[in-house]
């Protein structure tokens, strides 16, 4: 009798575990999912970035659900680096959300290359994407000749300065590289942090570095470097590293910038403690959503002294899961097209950044966006962390830090980069 009790208890416990296992399919336990309505709803998971500049997505998703009562959107958002990591985690267990935000280039190509993202080429044909989205954005969402993303934003980068610092020091935006460097010194002496960059994560300072490469190496060499067809152990790269070191030693960067969060660097700009930053077409809306006045800031092209003067550009897109059911895919495409539709963009135009969609209104509140986009019309290069394979860009981040900290000389850093590139090339050509 007592034995039976014991046996029973053990069985109950094992059973409860097994039951827990079986409950997997119906246990989408998020509260949002419990609102099963009268009709059968399609529930899709959406991942986007979070933080300033992305608040509008929440509202847009809300509207989408109201307009499409049969679709339910479970929206999760992440900051930049967690986004990259969480997508990879999801990829490794094949549990991608149904629709996710990603960048172009080597960051976004991982998912198509591994069969995780849906080929949208046919949809693009049917829905006439060529007339809806910017051609460059479509190209940058295309991998191996197939379209794998709904283009969301096409961003160009630029130098931004605070008018306050420039007025206080009686300066005009620099026209030559020499002038740019003079201004750094003047701004420094006037008590400003000349260059607001934060190297945590690596990519912020990289934006300055790639402009230096463009300046020293010229467009042709720069493109060859990015396509791994030129040696990284060359003069332009060494000079770039040397400049980063020089600026570090002259304290042009914020104190402790090697481990500073890029958002904190932005904050130094908002507070007018710093003078110059490199940000993109989205920065107008970041300034607005952080509660500051865009008219306090100006933009200038980095004087690369090359022709054309090229800024860096990158695309952002929404990819759809290849493994999701057809209903979910259809709903996800609908949501993706909605979030990039003319009406939604016009509604949120002040905070949307630079849309990849054609024929949308321009924002009065984003006075600098057009100027930056125009600067890319003569030519542009793809931003380094999307042009290079991820292992190599990590090497670059490490090299940047090590040079700044004096661990490596610029020559050493260039050699290390070159070594990593050669290893990568030989490994992938096997």
């Amino acid at each position, binding site marked *: 009798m007592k*034995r039976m009790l*014991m*046996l029973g208890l*053990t069985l109950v*416990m*094992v059973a409860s*575990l097994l039951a827990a296992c079986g409950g997997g399919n119906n246990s989408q336990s998020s509260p949002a999912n419990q609102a099963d309505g009268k009709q059968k709803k399609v529930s899709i998971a959406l991942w986007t970035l979070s933080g300033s500049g992305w608040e509008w997505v929440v509202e847009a998703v809300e509207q989408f659900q109201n307009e499409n009562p049969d679709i339910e959107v479970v929206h999760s958002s992440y900051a930049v*680096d967690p986004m*990259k*990591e969480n997508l*990879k*985690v999801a*990829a*490794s267990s*094949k549990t991608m959300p149904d629709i996710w935000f990603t960048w172009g280039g080597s960051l976004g190509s*991982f998912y198509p290359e*591994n*069969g*995780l993202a849906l080929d949208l080429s046919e949809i693009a044909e049917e829905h006439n994407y060529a007339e809806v989205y910017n051609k460059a954005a479509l190209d940058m969402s295309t991998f191996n000749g197939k379209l794998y993303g709904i283009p969301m934003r096409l961003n160009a980068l630029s130098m931004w300065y605070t008018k306050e610092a420039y007025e206080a020091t009686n300066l005009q935006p620099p026209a030559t590289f020499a002038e740019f460097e003079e201004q750094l010194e003047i701004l420094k002496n006037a008590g400003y942090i000349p260059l607001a960059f934060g*190297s*945590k*994560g690596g990519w912020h300072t990289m934006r300055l570095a790639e402009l230096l490469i463009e300046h020293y190496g010229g467009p042709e060499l720069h493109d060859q470097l990015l396509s791994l067809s030129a040696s990284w152990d060359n003069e332009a790269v060494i000079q770039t590293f040397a400049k980063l070191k020089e600026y570090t030693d002259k304290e042009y960067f*914020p*104190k*402790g*910038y*090697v*481990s*500073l969060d890029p958002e904190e660097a932005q904050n130094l700009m908002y507070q007018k403690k710093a003078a110059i930053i490199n940000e993109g077409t989205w920065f107008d809306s970041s300034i607005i959503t952080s509660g500051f006045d865009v008219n306090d800031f100006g933009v200038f092209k980095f004087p690369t002294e090359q022709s054309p003067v090229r800024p860096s550009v990158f695309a952002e897109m929404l990819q759809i899961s290849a493994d999701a059911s057809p209903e979910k895919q259809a709903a996800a495409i609908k949501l993706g097209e909605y979030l990039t539709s003319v009406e939604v963009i016009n509604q949120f135009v002040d905070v949307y950044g630079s849309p990849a969609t054609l024929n949308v209104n321009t924002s009065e509140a984003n006075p600098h966006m057009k100027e930056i986009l125009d600067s890319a019309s003569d030519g542009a290069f793809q931003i380094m962390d999307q042009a290079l394979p*991820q*292992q190599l860009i*990590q090497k670059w981040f*490490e090299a940047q*830090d*090590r040079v*700044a*900290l004096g*661990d490596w000389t610029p020559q050493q850093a260039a050699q*290390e980069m070159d070594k990593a590139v050669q290893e990568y090339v030989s490994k992938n050509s096997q």
Partner: protein
Amino acid sequence: MFTKVKPWLYLLPALIIYLTVICFPSLYSLYLSFFEWNGVAPDRKFVGLDNYVYLFTKDTVFPTALSNNLQWMLGSLVLMMGLGLALALMLNKRLKGRTWFRGIFYFPYVLSGIVVAMVWTWMYNPTQGFFNKVLELVGLESWTQAWLAEPKFALYAVFLAALWQGVGQPLVLFIAGLSSIPDDPYEAAFIDGASKFQSFYYITLPLLRETFVIVVATTMIGAMKVYDIVYAMTGGGPAESTQVLSSLMYYQTFRYANIGIGSAISWVLVLIVMIVLIPYVYYTTKRSHV
């Protein structure tokens, strides 16, 4: 017959979960460490021990991470355990307010690594943080540092935060150990005219031997597994100087999708912990016969 099966029935739930969550996955990751794989592609390439060879001969960050873990272990054994023991001895006396003191020293251990990281990152903030402001206050402005941005200091700065957090653990274990020592040997020693140091050295330490074993073991495992505080404070930077095996494993696996290399790192971790701990397990179970 049934009595033979019965113990297994009691063990069954724990055993099933244990096998599913710990045993099978860790062996499987040993298997994965012999492959080159991005975690998604259908084909895995068998590379034998190449991943391990790569880590020890080519990877530039792995040696740093390994050495950081070993330094961390040494620091924990000397400082964390030392401070824990010292505090336990001080609190073991019939002391007014000892519960309060114990609570204060133990309290940080209750916090998550993430919370500790957030608190201390703010303390180390180069412009507004506590350390630099205090240095400025006492006129040592030249000593101010971007603590987490200097490879020279970053690891130690993180370790200091971890020390603050972790001292509670050896402290409680030592207090528990001390409280099980009876009074008589001390009384005898006192009558024999032994000095305080002598009675500590000849009575307390030997009787604490078993406590030491468990404290050393937990401290070492803790040091090898350290992750969240590093991840949240520095993310392994600057220039990978604060990378530890766990964080490196995380980045290799989940940022660069090098599953094979990530698994190899985790097995290096397992092997180190095993070398350190097998004597401990042997000791504990051997004593259990008594």
